[in-house]
């Protein structure tokens, strides 16, 4: 069995995280006042590579270019506008307090730290809350059509884990509108010649020269050729690793290959076990399914989650003998409202997901597989009328109907004078990854000149992310943080010419990519990429999913090892290295997902506590709530690659220090 050598565990020097001096509310101001800047004439001489065009990548690329840097920007889709951020539905948080409901920068900071189960770095989160308001201003200035009230001012809605209304939205398409805003700024810079855009390009390696990131090797996905790009610094904004589980709410192309390339070059990978499982997704329907569809968290503003009180009712539902709307109010168990009266249906995602699993494990699931709960709008429709409810959620209702053939706004039954509408069926699914490449306060990785922003870094959400905070973080990083902090690094690079690409370092890096590609094509085994990916997904969901145990994780590590062997000896990739070859590209990504899966399992095995998205069944209270161990696990777990995918990585701890917030048990009950 693969084990972690506890003797070898190192502790990071507190200075390495580069948290500025001073009280929490002044750190970012102090930092900006004292950081080194690059003057306009010098900016023109510096080139930055930004990999990714999601909210993080597009905002960083356009802002750096506006400042005067030359930017090379890459994405795997056919246009920057198609990055996965486009799919975000619900909204983006900011501490504007436009609703006058008592919100403030401190409260957003506090909610985010608490929501993250006290495992995030305080200083980063405070900065995030601080710049959140600028994001809304910036997006409105770009012409992002946020939802508005009749008076013409911006509208807000509520999301989980907060008692204020601070979420800004554009129908159920907030990610789309924010990304199109960033894309428009990016387009302006492309037009001005400051950004060069490379679409259908996939980064395969980061090139290090004298200990600094100086470029990348990227594959042109149309010609099949590897190409070399050099720069003064490299920024990775390539999103999360949720697709290691095969089925997730992520887009099909989401992958962790760029992050894994950085990890293999020595960038630490932090907290991989913190994976978010979203409570409101459409349940799995069959083996052919390729992805899971999210039903936005905003539905929990008006939707109530329930299962039957009576196990007999549940059994009848499972056999298809009755429908949800046949069960009257008094026989329904609104278990979130029952267990968490203060937050009710708006508890954070990890809490809501586990509660659904608990009910289904006890046999109360409501569909044929027993793996679903109801999300019901009867009360809201009766209170507000169907028109108002449809105005709020109509596109989500339509989306649900298209997939499941059930219309949640349709009248189901009238019992004792109360009208019941068809409920939605939902179940938790892999959605977001809080873990990621380790970065310091400046968003620089443990490799000099290599930065990571957006979902692919680990920085702000601790063990669990609150809804509407990923968009906030991506844009905070890209518009307001990285463009400043990167200058502190670049300021002493102004005399360094941009390195050429015909150096031994680039030769070596490209040679490795070609060899890796040839190796994949040479296997000529029997199994398709997808069949192995599905198997990986089953292992991850079963043993490294919502409920983890020491025993299960040990089994997972053994199975993953065997799966890697299967991949290396029995994979079949059709076609050749010439031209476009999607199967070959998928094979590359799968290889990295297997390594990523192991990393998640190692981290989960090491963390003998339950916190946020990481739930170890051995560590729970009698009521089934997560039991943290602050004495032993109040740290960021950074994993250091040991030269081969087969070797267990080494652990380096970054101890957490809280100055502003008192660490407590999370309470959403009162």
């Amino acid at each position, binding site marked *: 069995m693969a084990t972690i050598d506890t003797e070898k565990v190192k502790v990071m020097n507190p200075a390495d995280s580069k948290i500025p001096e001073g009280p929490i509310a002044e750190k970012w101001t102090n930092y900006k006042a004292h950081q080194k800047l690059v003057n306009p004439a010098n900016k023109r001489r510096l080139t930055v590579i930004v990999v990714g065009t999601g909210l993080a990548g597009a905002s960083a690329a*356009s802002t750096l270019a506006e400042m005067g840097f030359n930017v090379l920007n890459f994405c795997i889709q056919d246009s920057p506008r198609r990055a996965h951020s486009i*799919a975000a539905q619900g909204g983006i948080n900011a501490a504007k307090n436009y609703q006058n409901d008592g919100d403030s920068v401190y409260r957003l900071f506090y909610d985010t730290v608490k929501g993250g189960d006290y495992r995030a770095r305080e200083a980063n989160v405070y900065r995030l809350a601080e710049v959140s308001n600028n994001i809304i201003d910036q997006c409105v200035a770009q012409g992002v059509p946020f939802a508005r009230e009749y008076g013409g001012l911006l509208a807000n809605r509520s999301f989980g884990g907060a008692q204020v209304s601070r979420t800004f939205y554009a129908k159920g398409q907030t990610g789309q509108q924010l990304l199109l805003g960033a894309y428009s700024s990016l387009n302006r810079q492309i037009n001005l010649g400051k950004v060069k855009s490379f679409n259908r390009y996939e980064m395969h390696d980061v090139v290090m020269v004298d200990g600094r990131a100086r470029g990348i090797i990227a594959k042109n996905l149309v010609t099949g050729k590897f190409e070399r790009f050099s720069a003064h610094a490299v920024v990775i904004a390539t999103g999360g690793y949720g697709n290691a589980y095969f089925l997730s709410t992520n887009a099909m192309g989401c992958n962790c290959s760029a992050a894994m390339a950085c990890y293999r070059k020595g960038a630490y990978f932090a907290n991989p076990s913190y994976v978010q499982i979203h409570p409101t997704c459409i349940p799995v329907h069959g083996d052919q399914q390729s992805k899971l569809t999210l039903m936005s968290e905003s539905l929990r503003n008006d939707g109530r989650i329930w299962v039957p009180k009576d196990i007999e009712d549940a059994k009848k539902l499972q056999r298809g003998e009755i429908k949800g709307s046949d069960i009257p109010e008094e026989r329904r168990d609104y278990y979130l409202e029952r267990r968490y009266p203060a937050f009710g249906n708006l508890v954070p995602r990890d809490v809501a997901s586990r509660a659904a699993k608990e009910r289904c494990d006890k046999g109360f699931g409501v569909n044929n597989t027993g793996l679903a709960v109801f999300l019901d709008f009867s009360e809201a429709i009766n209170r507000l009328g169907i028109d108002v409810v449809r105005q709020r959620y109509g596109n989500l209702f339509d989306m649900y109907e298209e997939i499941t053939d059930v219309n949640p706004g349709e009248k189901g039954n009238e019992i004792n004078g109360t009208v019941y509408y068809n409920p939605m069926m939902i179940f938790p699914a892999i959605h977001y990854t809080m873990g990621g490449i380790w970065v310091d306060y400046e968003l620089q990785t443990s490799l000099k000149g290599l930065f990571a922003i957006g979902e692919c870094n680990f920085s702000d959400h601790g063990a669990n992310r609150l809804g509407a905070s990923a968009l906030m973080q991506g844009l905070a990083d890209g518009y307001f943080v990285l463009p400043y902090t990167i200058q502190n690094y670049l300021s002493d690079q102004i005399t360094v010419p941009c390195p050429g690409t015909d150096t031994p370092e680039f030769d070596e890096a490209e040679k490795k990519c070609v060899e890796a590609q040839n190796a994949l094509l040479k296997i000529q085994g029997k199994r398709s990429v997808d069949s192995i990916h599905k198997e990986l997904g089953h292992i991850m969901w079963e043993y490294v999913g919502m409920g983890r145990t020491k025993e299960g994780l040990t089994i997972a590590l053994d199975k993953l090892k065997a799966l890697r062997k299967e991949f290396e000896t029995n994979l079949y990739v059709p076609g050749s290295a010439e031209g476009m070859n999607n199967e070959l590209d998928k094979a590359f990504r799968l290889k990295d997902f297997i390594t990523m899966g192991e990393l998640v399992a190692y981290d989960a095995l090491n963390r003998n506590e339950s916190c946020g998205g990481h739930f170890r069944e051995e560590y729970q209270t009698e009521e089934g709530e997560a039991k943290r161990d602050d004495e032993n696990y109040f740290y960021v777990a950074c994993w250091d690659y040991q030269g081969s995918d087969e070797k267990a990585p080494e652990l380096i701890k970054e101890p957490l220090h809280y100055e502003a917030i008192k660490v407590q048990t999370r309470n959403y009950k009162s």
Partner: protein
Amino acid sequence: MANMTVNLKVWRQAGPKEKGEFRTYTVETDTDTSFLETLDILNEQLVNNHEEPIAFDHDCREGICGMCSLYINGHPHGPATGATTCQLYMRRFKDGETITVEPWRSAAFPVIKDLMVNRNAFDQIQQAGGYVSFNCGGAQDANCLPISKVNADMAMDSATCIGCGACVAACKNGSAMLFVSAKVSQFALLPQGQVERKRRARAMVKKMDELGFGNCTNTGACEAECPKCIKISNIARLNREFIKAKCSD
């Protein structure tokens, strides 16, 4: 759920310069499986037979990224209205049906491989003027600029365009007017877009013409086939914007 068998008559083309042809494949699927998942099943079959799988664009599979782009039974995104290819479920088809699947066909969108086309022209049109020239930092408080809900909602409806190119594929002239008008309208309806209003309309139309898109003859196929139901009234607005801009030249 019911099992079903369909024949997929698919356009196969090895590269931009190669000659293409239809090939027909039989696939077993079921009513609850999506159309793209049915293509996945077919591709799995092809790979297992050591044949080249069919190349097609897709990513989010929930109707928002605009990546999927199939011309199914003579309609961009197939028979469902207000839905993209990835939102199409097999219950829309009959057991035993032969379904014809082609790439977008338009001079401005050359085929890359099989069902995949190059839509770079759309990016180029946006680059020509689809933005408000504003540098990050220094924005005033968002609520200092009240915008009537009616205009904000109309701008949002135009901004819903996913840039898939169905409008071009549907148009007998291969015109990109619906796409261009959606962006021009979004900004024409908002105060932020006013300063560059004329320049934007001129620049985007000029770029569109340069890139080989056809003219609009008001046939309305674009509106009928748009998966996001972008209204043709946007085109009327674009025409007004463009004429106003030209008159002030």
